[in-house]
């Protein structure tokens, strides 16, 4: 089975995100870069399929030179080889342009399943997997929490509000992974050492025949409104009053219930 896992390098979830003074982007100083956690679920699932059915796992990653670390991380987990799409023209690519580049890199390869994370935790767009499927002309199942592959088809479980859908799909297909699919493994040290020697192809936009021209552009980055300091709810100082006030705030201010 030939499996492709697309990964992205993103700032660690705990990293401090500082918007540049001119709003043109974020300040990357001091940021710890990690593999997008949702992509990690995809890589893990790819490895599990490989362990079950045999075959090869190829990592495809678009990003600047530092993204090589993330490719190596996936290789250390057990993936076999990597393709690193590295071209300044693509660094600011939107979802569509990213998917185009990935599709161009994948087109020549044999594949049965392509894994993507359901979204990247930096731009939080959640589009690339679906666009990639469209560009490759194959079906996609997004937000998958469980996957069973059998022969030429797969059954994927996807949560929607209040229910779980079990979706059957033909192969090849794109699966976008989300939390619950698996627990990604911790790379072994021999894995880390071997990863340094595994082949990684570096490709630029010209080699892939893409321009990187984006249709959606973030024209301005703004810091979030300062999160108000925690509110201690006093209301009329009775439990009833506090409870009522709290429920009201959760409903109307936080909009979480």
């Amino acid at each position, binding site marked *: 089975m030939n499996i492709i896992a697309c990964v992205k390098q993103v700032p*660690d979830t*705990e*990293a*401090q995100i500082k918007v540049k003074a001119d709003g043109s982007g974020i300040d990357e100083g*001091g940021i*710890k870069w*990690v593999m997008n956690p949702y992509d990690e679920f995809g890589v893990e699932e790819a490895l599990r399929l490989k362990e079950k059915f045999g075959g090869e796992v190829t990592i495809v990653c678009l990003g600047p030179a530092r993204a090589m670390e993330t490719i190596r991380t996936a290789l250390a987990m057990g993936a076999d080889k990597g393709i690193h799409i590295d071209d300044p023209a693509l660094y600011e690519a939107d979802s569509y342009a990213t998917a185009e580049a990935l599709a161009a890199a994948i087109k020549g390869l044999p594949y049965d399943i392509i894994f993507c994370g359901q979204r990247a935790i930096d731009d939080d767009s959640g589009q690339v997997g679906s666009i990639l499927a469209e560009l490759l002309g194959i079906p996609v199942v997004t937000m998958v929490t469980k996957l069973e592959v059998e022969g030429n088809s797969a059954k994927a479980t996807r949560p929607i509000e209040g229910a779980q859908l079990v979706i059957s799909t033909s192969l090849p297909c794109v699966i976008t992974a989300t939390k619950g699919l698996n*627990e990604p*493994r*911790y*790379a*072994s*040290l*021999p*894995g*880390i*050492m071997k990863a340094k020697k595994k082949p990684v192809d570096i490709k630029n936009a010209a080699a892939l025949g893409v321009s990187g021209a984006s249709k959606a552009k973030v024209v301005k980055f703004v810091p979030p409104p300062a999160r108000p300091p925690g509110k*201690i709810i*006093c209301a009329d*100082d009775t439990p009833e009053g506090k409870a009522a006030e709290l429920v009201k705030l959760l409903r109307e201010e936080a909009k979480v219930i």
Partner: protein
Amino acid sequence: MELSHFKIGHEGREVFWNAEHFEPFLFFFTFIALVIFAYGLYRRWLIWSAIGKAEPEDRKSNWKVRLKNLVIDGLLQRKVLQDRYPGIMHALIFFGFLLLFFGAAFDATEFHVAEPLGFAFLTGKFYLFFSFLMDLAGLAILVGVFMALDRRYLSKPDRLGYRGKPDNTPDDAIALLLIAGIVITGFFIEALRIAVTWQQTPWEVWSFVGWTLASALNGISEPTARALHKGMWWVHTFLALGFIAYIPFSRLLHMITTPANYYMATLRPTGTIEPIRDFENAESFGVGTIEEFTWKQLFDSDACTRCGRCQEGCPAYLTGKPLSPKKLIQDIKTYWLEKAPAAIQAKKEELRAKMAAGEETDKCAKVLAFLDKIDQAIDKYVPARPETGEKALVGEVISLDELWACTNCMYCMENCSAAIEHVPKIIGMRQYKVLMEADFAPELQLTYRNMENNSNPWGVGSHLRGEWAKDLGIKTLAEDPNVEYLFYVGCAGSFDDRGKKVSIAFAKILQAAGVSFGILGSEEGCCGDSAMRGGNEYLYQSLAQANIEVMNGYGVKKILTICPHGYNALKKDYPHFGGNYEVYHHTEFIAKLISERKIKLKKSVADYVTYHDSCFLGRYNDIYDEPRKVLKAVPGLQLLEMERNLAKSFCCGAGGARMWMEEHGERINDARAKQAIETGAQTIAVGCPFCLTMMSDGLKTHGKDETMNALDIAEIVWKAMDLEEEKPPVDVCKT
């Protein structure tokens, strides 16, 4: 019968009385016994060295210190005697035997050297003293043996077993009975001799046991006595020679291995772990098979006498976890004995393959010939064991629950009377699970990921590390590198709300004392202790190197810490990687400030306080006095000691990466908190943020959090300095 030339004023005895012609036979049998002894020992040595890897640590140089260890702990039994009853028991047997051994040597010298040369010395007053001493020694041994029999078969303390089941083997009884048999037959020979000669040798009353026994034999005819004597003489001789021959094949082997182990004992600071040096080229990491232990580590298990001192204070064992340091060492031993034939076969095949490939043929041939010898030895020597099939060292021989239950508290190693090094073995096996198989508790994986990404176990954003200090006017080294001390805060002191209070208290003490110090702020990283002790040497080294790079970059020379884990790592482990600093724990430093009168403790803050020794402060670094001194300097403070304290202190449960792992069954911290509660103290004083968490949680478990509290020494001192008004609690809804 020839007349003795001994008389009053020239007391003595004939050495081969009634056994004149036995001497050649005695030599012959002694020779055989010694050959068996030497042969057995040689075989054993072959196995240790054939299975285990080369020992990376220097175990030979510095012979003076090593000899001193051998004398103090091997010969003078210091460690053994630290434990009253078993100490006395062993000392009686050990010193008794030693005396009798020298006695026999005196006898032999007298007979073969001194007498023929005409300067016999075993005469007169010396002979009388000698006789008395020999009987006393014999008696001491008998008392020791009876104490041992009582301990092993009647009183049966838990430590001579595992969870109430004694781990006695026939060998234990044989060894004791052999010893008793030698002494008892010896007394009978003496008594029978005296029964015949007592009228000519009234001074034999000095051989008081033999004399008393002879009196009991009153009325025995001389021929009967002589015949009995001859028979008993041979029984005694065979028991004694049998004993010698039996040594290498029994628990008696410890007579050789334990002192040897003292000689080879590590001379490094307590708890030092040999770092893995070459990640790039090593083929395997840690200990996953028996062959990955060093020969010294296997040897260790042969020095173990199953005395159970380690088990008696092991926090894991005492709270019902499957781990017992004794069982662990014994399981390793049983396993390598089982694996010995196969391991050597494997080695031989490897060598043959090498030879076939034409590599180092000469060297391989030599080693092969050597191994053939071992092979033959094993056939003869290792008793055939039932085929148990392939067992994994880690996971089967040593269960994962055992492996991960260890808190690295160092109780076992500090209290072992055979200088066995348990903890490095455990870390070695953990390294295998973590580095090679990446198969370990998910919560520990999360911790490691957090350390990788944010350089702290909780995964709090690393940019928030210096936040605790932001209102205190403390400068970072980036702002002012010209300070005397770096205050290395550590993760708990930087991120944990409870730990931050300790950092703040200590920082305020330093400020009040006018100490020049700074912090690293967000440039500081996790010390890596939990990673290292949890087997993740790779992560540990990367964390250590990052810290060293930053600290060396600022030219840091002196460091203050509030966490014994960071203290220990920075002080003793960082030098492996080029980080050489003068490191002080805050309790040491506060003690210094008090003695130099830089700070004054004015206010009484707690009446009854018990101090919990942190393992990484106490056993690891011998800091027992300073924290107590500081506490005693607080006005009106009464220090109450827990029963388990100082070197026998009971771990809080957080060490050895256990802080980050789920604990099942009785929790170690609850057990320790109970011990603290039993002292009647109101406050548990600690010097470690992890102990602080563990003790606070323990008090909550026992429902004592309203009436008792756990405080760091820095907090107690800061309060006692009385420089800050306590803020009354605020009613949020009223203001």
